[in-house]
């Protein structure tokens, strides 16, 4: 990936982050911490990697993304709207009466959402089923699954991991959003998950750990995963819950937060400034 493309993906990520902050600011509360930590990975997937057609979201040969940590819906919606799956106006309707953008992603409501999630752990199995179906059909489409580090407390995650490995599903890539926090605090205090790299290796995965804020590292890891034949892949995203917004990072319990106007304004300033910095750099390349 050349520097220009890298900056373009950084710009896409910064735009997703700004739109995600606006969505939650409009509502005044929400799951913003864990939305902001997956932004760069979403930017790489939807900006560069995934075979998709926003005008034909049900295209049989598309690549699939399952956000098993369904509470990252706001980041997914910003990404999909920016890709043109639905009008940007929809982002103002997050969680409002009659919305197509509920807290947790819903395949029946939102164009471009490939699977309904929210009951933690379950997206790991449904994504696995989709990968199995595609593989049995001889399709070369790929499935990208996001799970949370807290979500990984759920036993179902490991049942699905076992299955992916046993059936040699090399068309699925798991991302672990290793943002170190779950609802009640730090993962290591609530339910220590130990070393994700070792765990996924032990489950038979091709496993890599990357800086989850680096679009280049994420992209390179996805390409390396493509080369790993005969086994599923896992990319552990080393991230920060609330990435890009200092006020949020400082809140210890930042899974679901109140987002009052004053804080929202500061957050918007910060993410907008970040976006402008990338744009300036891009203009000079």
């Amino acid at each position, binding site marked *: 990936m050349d520097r220009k493309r890298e900056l373009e993906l950084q710009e896409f990520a910064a735009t997703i982050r700004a739109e995600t902050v606006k969505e939650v600011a409009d509502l005044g509360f929400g799951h913003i911490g864990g939305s902001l930590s997956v932004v760069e990975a979403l930017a790489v997937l939807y900006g560069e990697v995934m075979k998709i057609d926003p005008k034909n979201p049900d295209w*049989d040969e598309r690549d*699939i993304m399952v956000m098993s940590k369904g509470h990252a819906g706001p980041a997914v919606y910003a990404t999909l709207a920016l890709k043109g799956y639905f009008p940007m106006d929809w982002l103002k309707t997050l969680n409002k009466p009659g919305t197509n953008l509920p807290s947790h992603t*819903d*395949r*029946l409501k939102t164009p471009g959402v*490939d*699977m*309904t999630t*929210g*009951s933690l*752990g*379950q997206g*790991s*199995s*449904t*994504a*696995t*089923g*989709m*990968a*199995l*179906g*595609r593989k*049995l*059909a001889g399709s070369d489409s790929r499935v990208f699954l996001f799970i949370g580090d807290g979500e990984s407390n759920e*036993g*179902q995650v490991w*049942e*699905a991991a*076992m*299955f992916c490995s*046993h059936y040699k599903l090399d068309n699925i890539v798991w991302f672990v959003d290793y943002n170190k926090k779950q609802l009640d605090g730090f993962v290591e205090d609530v339910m220590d998950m130990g070393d994700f790299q070792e765990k996924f290796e032990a489950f038979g995965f091709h496993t890599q750990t990357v800086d989850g804020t680096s679009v280049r590292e994420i992209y390179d890891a996805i390409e390396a995963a493509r080369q790993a034949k005969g086994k599923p892949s896992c990319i552990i995203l080393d991230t920060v819950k609330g990435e890009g917004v200092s006020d949020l990072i400082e809140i210890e319990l930042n899974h679901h937060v109140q987002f009052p106007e004053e804080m929202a304004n500061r957050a918007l300033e910060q993410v907008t400034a970040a976006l402008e910095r990338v744009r300036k750099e891009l203009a000079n390349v």
Partner: protein
Amino acid sequence: MYKVVFDGSREKADHKSVYANTIQALAAEDEKIIALDADLMNSSGTFKFWKEHPDQMINVGVAEANMMGIAGGLSAVGRIPYVHTFGPFASRRSFDQTFISIGYAGNSVRIFGSDPGVCAAFNGGTHMPFEDMALMRAIPGATVFDISDAVLLGWVLRDIKSNEGVTYLRSTRKSFLKIYEEGSTFEQGKANLLREGKDAAVIACGLMVGEAMLAAEELAKEGIELTVIDMFTVKPLDHEAVAKAAETGAIVTAENHNIIGGLGESVAASLLEQGLPVAFKRHGVMDRFGQVGAVDYLQEVYGLTAKDLIVSVKETIAKKK
């Protein structure tokens, strides 16, 4: 059309082979069909098919929750999944996965929970679902069957191929008393009238259909004429059949299931909502856990024999106004 050939004899074919043969035939006809099992293929009869067609018969291992999610994902990419495990694991163990990853997510999966109620026999209380229908009925839009006969089982397995959402069927893996002639056809959501009599009606499902027919024969000797209905589709309920049964003035429901949440409560609600005042009794498992034993022993323990049903019918007739 169905034809009743009940004579008190047992079926020759066991339901396990009907399941295995039907799945295999369906898979041969349509490559979209895919069956999943959770390390119980040797119990459901699909073991040989698994070895021959690992592309259409998937072993998930002992991981029922994962199996429901995988089936949901397969449905989302255009496959037609059937899953099997024992009833308790097909219902309560994996309930949220079925509810969310299949039902709520708009996926379509057919779930066979085998060995309902006392049919779990020597596997005992841990494997004995008296509550599976209560759970599955509570899933919006779900279709729920309690299978009384092997001919019915084969027909249902085929007919649900195009069902949407969650479809749950419970059936023994062994055999029941034979009810229907080979080649009989049925209609989802429409109860089967097996026998007509003016004194009372038994609305039964699953194991209890044969018992109700035995009870009807015994009562006939005493001059009591019984209507017997096989309400094999427990949800959606056939309200017209309930109304027809109500013409007798006395209804007993009979199920191999807890009286809470099953056929009886569903029929009771239907009667009240249709404004049909009849003498009524729910006959089934009286809010108890399961236990180990042979099926006939357990039928006696839980009052699921024709003899017990006769007592309930007489009590209910006595309450007629």
